[in-house]
């Protein structure tokens, strides 16, 4: 049942004023009490999915706090942004988490940084700020400056650990910030009974660096791409491109086609090297070190290719608002096609043999299950969604850069276990290779930088890209004198990590690292996670009811 764009816009118009910001992106002004209704329609009825919630302190401009809920309608290739005015004296807003559980973290973050209170949100505790952060200081508000905050910090009160009941049966296993299985600082606490995981919690955000505040106060528009690129240690270039596209959309700058091609080429190179890295990590977690060594051996070739094209293995540093800084001559295209053929033949022969090994299959088949309904509720993105039967891919549904000029297939599986996520990534690597070939063959002539780059103030822009881990959303509000007023980067793992808590339940302790790694979490993008519970199997009946009650909230 394909709902046309116009039909959506009419049904939304009765809720508030619709304003077209740039090509197929609409801002809908909605009053506070209608927010739940609109999100219900957009997320569940019209087949779109909730993407991000952004708060912004626009008192200097129009004297209000603003909360933007971004919804992406995949089938109709639309992005709808519902925004609500919040009066600064009593910052209160009805929460949409009861309808869309995926918005849980987003609203807690807005509460942390802007002090906006969300009514009947299940657990509106502190998500990102450390527990010794002074109460009532909301960092992203305009009147708070980052200088001089250090003195106000409270003394470090370690979380008091309640005494447990005497006859506890199970025990806690901390997969903590420094754990050999996961190469970034995140903290899972698994409640384990025997070898079975009963419950899991995530307490995270150990590496939150507050880049949004730094970008607003210190950096100019053309300096932010370089910090955007360093959000993630593996998929940095997608953030760079997403930011530049957001500003270009906001300012209405037309990027030349050749620059778009170069951007897409490097995005695909980054996707291949990220997926190969993931395969290596997975084989290492399953104890199959030869696979780890072999996949990374092939990945080295891709890193060398990136080094030739951009001058650096990982931080390409290629983008500025309005275009690209370095061109690709025919000799480089020749070199890239040669490496791509080598990589493709090598991968065809080695990687699918490794995926067919008995122990690899037995350790990944139907483990860490996430069914389609759970995935839709938590609005997971990228390979995790595609492995659970949801067909979302920003390159196909919201084409950006040069993706509208190439044909490619989006792999979708519906078992939703670790093995199907591996298969999704396996197909995507080969899809990227054939996209790269198409791009390199018919790259058009032309200059690589938009001729005049003029950025008006207080314009809103939405930048979307498909990172290797999922859809990447950057919302930008341009500011005065070459600075940005508000910049909200949302990395894909931000939506994916809550789904690990569901995947981990009932699984074996030995599979926990493989499950956590299966969503390919990039913690520096979203940074971090939490704790545990103990299962008493003596009084099994009573315990289960209490566990069920606790899980509803």
């Amino acid at each position, binding site marked *: 049942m394909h709902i046309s764009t116009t039909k959506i816009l009419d049904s939304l118009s009765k809720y508030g004023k619709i304003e077209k910001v740039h090509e197929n992106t609409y801002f809908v002004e909605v009053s506070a009490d209608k927010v739940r209704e609109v999100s219900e329609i957009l997320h569940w009825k019209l087949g779109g999915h909730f993407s991000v919630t952004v708060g912004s302190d626009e008192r200097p401009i129009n004297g209000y706090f603003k909360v933007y809920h971004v919804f992406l309608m995949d089938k109709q290739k639309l992005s709808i942004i519902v925004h609500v005015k919040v009066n600064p004296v009593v910052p209160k807003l009805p929460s949409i988490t009861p309808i869309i559980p995926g918005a849980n973290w987003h609203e807690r973050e807005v509460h942390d940084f802007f002090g906006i209170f969300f009514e009947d949100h299940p657990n509106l505790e502190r998500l990102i700020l450390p527990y010794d952060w002074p109460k009532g200081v909301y960092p992203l508000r305009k009147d708070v400056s980052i200088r001089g905050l250090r003195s106000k910090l409270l003394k470090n009160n370690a979380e008091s650990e309640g005494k447990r009941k005497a006859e506890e049966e199970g025990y*806690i296993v901390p997969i903590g910030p420094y*754990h*050999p299985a996961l190469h970034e600082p995140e903290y899972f606490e698994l409640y384990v009974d025997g070898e079975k995981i009963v419950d899991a919690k995530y307490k995270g955000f150990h590496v939150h660096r507050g880049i949004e505040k730094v970008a607003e106060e210190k950096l100019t528009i053309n300096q932010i791409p370089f910090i955007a690129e360093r959000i993630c240690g593996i998929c940095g270039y997608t953030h760079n491109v997403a930011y530049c596209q957001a500003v270009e959309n906001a300012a209405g700058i037309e990027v030349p086609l050749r620059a778009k091609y170069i951007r897409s080429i490097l995005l695909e190179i980054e996707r291949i090297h990220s997926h190969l890295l993931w395969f290596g990590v997975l*084989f290492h977690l399953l*104890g199959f*070190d*030869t696979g780890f060594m072999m996949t990374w051996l092939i990945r080295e070739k891709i890193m060398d290719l990136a080094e030739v094209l951009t001058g650096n293995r990982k931080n390409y540093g290629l983008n500025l608002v309005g275009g690209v800084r370095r061109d690709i001559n025919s000799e480089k295209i020749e070199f890239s096609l040669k490496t791509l053929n080598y990589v493709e033949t090598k991968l065809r022969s080695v990687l699918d043999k490794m995926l067919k*090994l008995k*122990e690899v299959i037995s350790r990944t088949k139907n483990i860490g299950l996430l069914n389609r309904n759970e995935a839709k509720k938590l609005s997971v993105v990228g390979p995790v969604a595609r492995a659970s039967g949801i067909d979302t891919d920003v390159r196909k549904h919201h084409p950006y850069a040069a993706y509208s000029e190439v044909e490619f297939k989006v792999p979708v599986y519906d078992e939703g276990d670790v093995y199907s996520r591996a298969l999704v990534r396996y197909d995507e690597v080969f899809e990227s290779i054939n996209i790269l070939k198409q791009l390199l063959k018919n790259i058009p002539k032309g200059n690589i930088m938009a001729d005049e780059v003029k950025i008006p103030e207080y314009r809103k822009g939405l930048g979307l890209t498909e990172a290797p881990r999922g859809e990447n959303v950057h919302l930008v509000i341009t500011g005065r004198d070459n600075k940005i007023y508000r910049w909200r980067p949302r990395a894909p793992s931000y939506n994916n990590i809550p789904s690990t808590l569901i995947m981990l339940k009932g699984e074996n302790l*030995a599979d926990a690292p493989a499950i956590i790694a299966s969503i390919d979490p990039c913690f520096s993008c979203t940074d971090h996670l939490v704790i545990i519970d103990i299962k008493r199997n003596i009084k099994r009946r009573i315990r289960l009811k209490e566990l069920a009650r606790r899980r509803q909230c």
Partner: protein
Amino acid sequence: MLYLVTVFANIVALLAIAPIIDGIERKVKAKLQCRKGPPILQTWYDLIKLFKRPSIVTEEYSIVYIISPYIIFANMLFALALVPSFTRISLSFFGDIIVLTYLITSSSILLAIGSISSGNVFAAIGASRELSLTTLSKLLMALTLAIFAVLKRSLMLETLFPIIPPYTLSAIASIILFAIIAYIESYKLPFDIPEAEPEIIDGILVEYSGKSLGILKYSMYLKRILFFTIIVYLILPREIPMLLTPVLYLISLIALSVTYVCIETYCGRLRIDQALKFTKTLVPILLVVLIIAYFNY
């Protein structure tokens, strides 16, 4: 007296080559993974570095946690004394097979007690896995020893060793099965579950450090050498001249460890319940071979 001297010489020689064999294994594994790999003496360098370091103790520790590495080391030394290595002379007496199984089990039991009493939850998980695996692999060990005893009508290693001459089906089958069990016991990859590095941070050895960790690792290498020597001497015929035995023994030792490494590099790690299921499937096979051996085919 000469007898005792040769036995001690044997042990000292084995103590020297155990880490070197492990070094060779690491080198071969690296080559199979397209890596250059560390030098052969790397294991010795690690051990020496570990022996220099003081061992750190947790607040929760108890005496067992400190003394168990040394008792395990002593067990391994005694086991090595029982087994003929470079020379055929060894300390065997009637029924020393049973003492051998007891030594191996008691070493893994002491390791489990030591690691649990370190108080760390990962050590406890590793220890519980280790105990489950040891009890089952001890059953397999007991069955194979019964087969050997039935084949050779004696419980003495001395009489047992060249088991091949009567080329019966059960003799060959028992050697293959013993090789599999040796593979499981020496924690080669599909079965290195107690120290599963990524899952429970080196499980059993997580709280050990410095000297005690060095000794534990050393006794693990000795355990591997012990199993290799038993397999080698099961095949080595008795007639070869005295001088040739040490050289032949060394070559076959290296060959055996290289084959084990080749298998190991291409296997992923099994979960504890899968590993137990695998060991359970071995039991009926062993019973069948035992019955065949009884009617000495």
